[in-house]
């Protein structure tokens, strides 16, 4: 228990550190927010007025604590460009991103683990080589390229799926699923290999140990050995890599969202970075960081729970 509490406390501390980094990072972006809002028509007077209004004249640390205080009370601030509450505009976008990540994960994780197990069972044979080769090839291709390939074949040539994945409230569930098939597949191909290769490596590692040899000697079949003895002991590293990839599905989808015109967080972030809407960029950055850190905490906790030595410390 103490270990878990430690991990959570570390995570929170890390989140604070990240918030400071995000704030510092957005401060050193070139260009001035006021100037980029007013654009071509800026006059010195209107610039000064706007700076005053936005509180840009206060020192950085005061602005940081004001911002942090707001976030801790659930107020993400208002967007500079639209003067809208960030939390309410961000909500549906975050939901869309999670929707895509969830369905991709539902397919990707079982598939990756199954392929990993198969690769171990038939290791160094043609099946293992085919699975590994295909997975490695798809990972080596950048996601925008995979995205455009999918669009070219499945949207333009065969016209099975739409090339633009616009989803909206009140869209029938099945249509929503159909709309995310292509971006989901692109993401799947990116994360699949990593998870599958790690599963394979972790189990193979366990397969070298003495108790697996014993199991072999007492005549268990290969699959039974993997299922009963090797897999449970390989869970910790597998969970780790799965969580890492889940985090990628949420925070790493910017490119895929833009290509498939998916109304998620990535598109939202890109729209606002272009306009130097710093509060929005900060809020999105912080959400991404929170997702990443919390998934890693979950991975840590899972590996603690999966390890009897950590579960029952002496």
């Amino acid at each position, binding site marked *: 228990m103490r270990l878990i509490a430690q991990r959570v406390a570390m995570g929170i501390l890390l989140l604070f550190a990240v918030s400071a980094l995000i704030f510092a990072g957005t401060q050193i972006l070139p260009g001035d927010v006021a100037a980029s809002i007013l654009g071509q028509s800026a006059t010195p007077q209107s610039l000064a007025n706007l700076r005053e209004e936005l509180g840009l004249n206060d020192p950085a640390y005061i602005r940081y604590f004001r911002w942090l205080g707001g976030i801790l009370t659930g107020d993400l601030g208002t967007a500079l460009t639209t003067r809208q509450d960030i939390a309410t505009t961000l909500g549906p976008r975050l939901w869309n991103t999670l929707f895509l990540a969830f369905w991709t994960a539902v397919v990707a994780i079982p598939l990756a683990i199954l392929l990993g197990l198969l690769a171990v069972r038939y290791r160094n044979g043609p099946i293992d080589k085919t699975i590994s080769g295909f997975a490695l090839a798809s990972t080596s291709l950048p996601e925008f390229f995979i995205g455009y390939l999918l669009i070219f074949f499945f949207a333009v040539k065969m016209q099975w799926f739409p090339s633009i994945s*616009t989803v*909206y409230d009140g869209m029938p569930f099945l249509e929503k699923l159909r709309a995310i098939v292509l971006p989901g597949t692109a993401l799947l191909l990116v994360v699949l290999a990593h998870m599958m290769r790690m599963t394979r490596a972790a189990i193979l590692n366990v397969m070298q140990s003495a108790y697996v040899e014993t199991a072999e000697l007492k005549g268990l079949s290969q699959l039974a050995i993997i299922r009963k003895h090797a897999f449970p002991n390989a869970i910790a590293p597998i969970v780790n890599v799965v969580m890492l990839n889940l985090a990628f599905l949420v925070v790493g989808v910017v490119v895929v969202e833009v290509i498939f015109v998916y109304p998620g967080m990535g598109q939202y972030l890109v729209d606002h970075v272009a306009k130097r809407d710093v509060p929005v960029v900060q809020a999105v950055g912080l959400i991404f960081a929170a997702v990443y850190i919390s998934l890693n905490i979950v991975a840590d906790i899972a590996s603690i729970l999966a390890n009897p030595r950590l579960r029952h410390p002496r």
Partner: protein
Amino acid sequence: MSNELEFLSRYVVAGRLSRRDFLGRAAALGASAAFANSLLGSAARAQGPVKGGILKAGLQGGEATNSLDPASFLSQVPFSFGKCWGEYLVRLNRDGSLKNQLAEEIGASDDAKTWTMKIKQGVEFHNGKTVTAEDVAATITRHADANSKSGALGILTNITGVKASGNEVIVTLANADADFPYLMADYHLIIQPNGGKDNPTEGISAGPYKVTVNEPGVRQGGEKFANYHGGDAMGHADQIEIIVINDATARTSALQGGQVQMINRVEPKIVELIKRVPGVTIQNVSGRGHYVFIMHCNTAPFDNNDLRLALKYAMNREEMLEKILFGYGSVGNDFPINAAYPLFTELEQRTYDPDKAKFHYQKSGHSGPVLLRTSDVAFTGAVDAAQLYQQSCAAAGITIEVKREPGDGYWSEVWNKQPFSTSYWGGRSTQDQMYTTAYYSKADWNDTRFFNEKFDQMLLAARSELDEAKRKQMYADMAMIVRDEGGLILPMFNDFIDASGAKAGGFNVHPAGEMMDGYALAECWVAA
């Protein structure tokens, strides 16, 4: 060959031959895909509009930040969507003249300072109310009020009074303006109930479509308004929808995949590739937007007209058009007006002439390199254009030093500040507005520092001249002054390049703006 093709194209329209078969036969007969497609288009137009269906456009230029308040319109999606649900007093025809929409008759007093607009009777808003002169007057006052932050505010500052009387709206101006009716075609000036003073973002007007879907930055759509006053001219499809697709590749693949029937902003460099896609037609039209190289006429060395002329003659316009716009534009003639404007007069075309450039350069007595500042934010390909210009100047013995400035801060630190830079203009609705914005000596954006008394006088005189023939002559004379004495080098006007798919019937480009001046969804139909 063409008789046979025309015959076949009528077959396609009648549904007796598939599109693919037609294009195949056309290719067999040696016709290019583009020609065959255009033939199909004209046959479809001749056939007449088809009613029903859903028409979709994939457009660049929509953000999560868009609102339905017409005063806030800035980018392409609100512009196009506004023309679907909004109704205006007037709209522009393709020949540059005006067509009455909610206005029935527009007349001016002899001094062009008082304008009376008679409002069409019995027109219904989407909410069932009747359009009155009061609504029109309230719309104009709202946009002319500085607090509205309307995009149309700049062109309405001349208004001193607006009042409704019976079915007429009477507008009084501080200074005479013969172009006043053109201002009413501005895309912000959608007539709303009580001018939108009660609820500017409700999306209610008297256009051919009622707003049904409004998800800014994602999609916006409408359904046919049964009581539309304009009869059969617009509103053929049952529903229209705009899907915001800001990525250029995603836009073209959505068109190819048939998810949308029309897209805007096709990049010049991929036009040739898209042309080969069966069923897709490139819809390009020369607009008013132009790319410029601007010199400050009051700053050395550009205060010498011979140097300015040398730099003008050293511009290879055809090459620029070919290499920067891939041919999708038209050459400029060093004044900011082209045939897209009403009352345009063609002047003798200035061409690349290294000898004349050399002559004027030597006459100017200047020596040493000339510093040109540029950045890719000035216009797409501006840095390449500057390098091409460097080459064509070198042939005339003029050394240009190209300095690439950062895109950040280009509009605040370089444009309108440094004596020689690259930039662009989107054009204005009338010649008067274009000249007043950027060439009048008192203009804030006089980015060539052009101070010419004679020009100023003519500009003001033309504004109050109601005799069109005389105004046309005045504008021609003014163009001549800018061309020969100004600080503007205008190598090219850029085209609007849209593309339509096989199912978009009736696409007919409009020089006033992309997507048929925004009316594409309202005027096209879903072809069988």
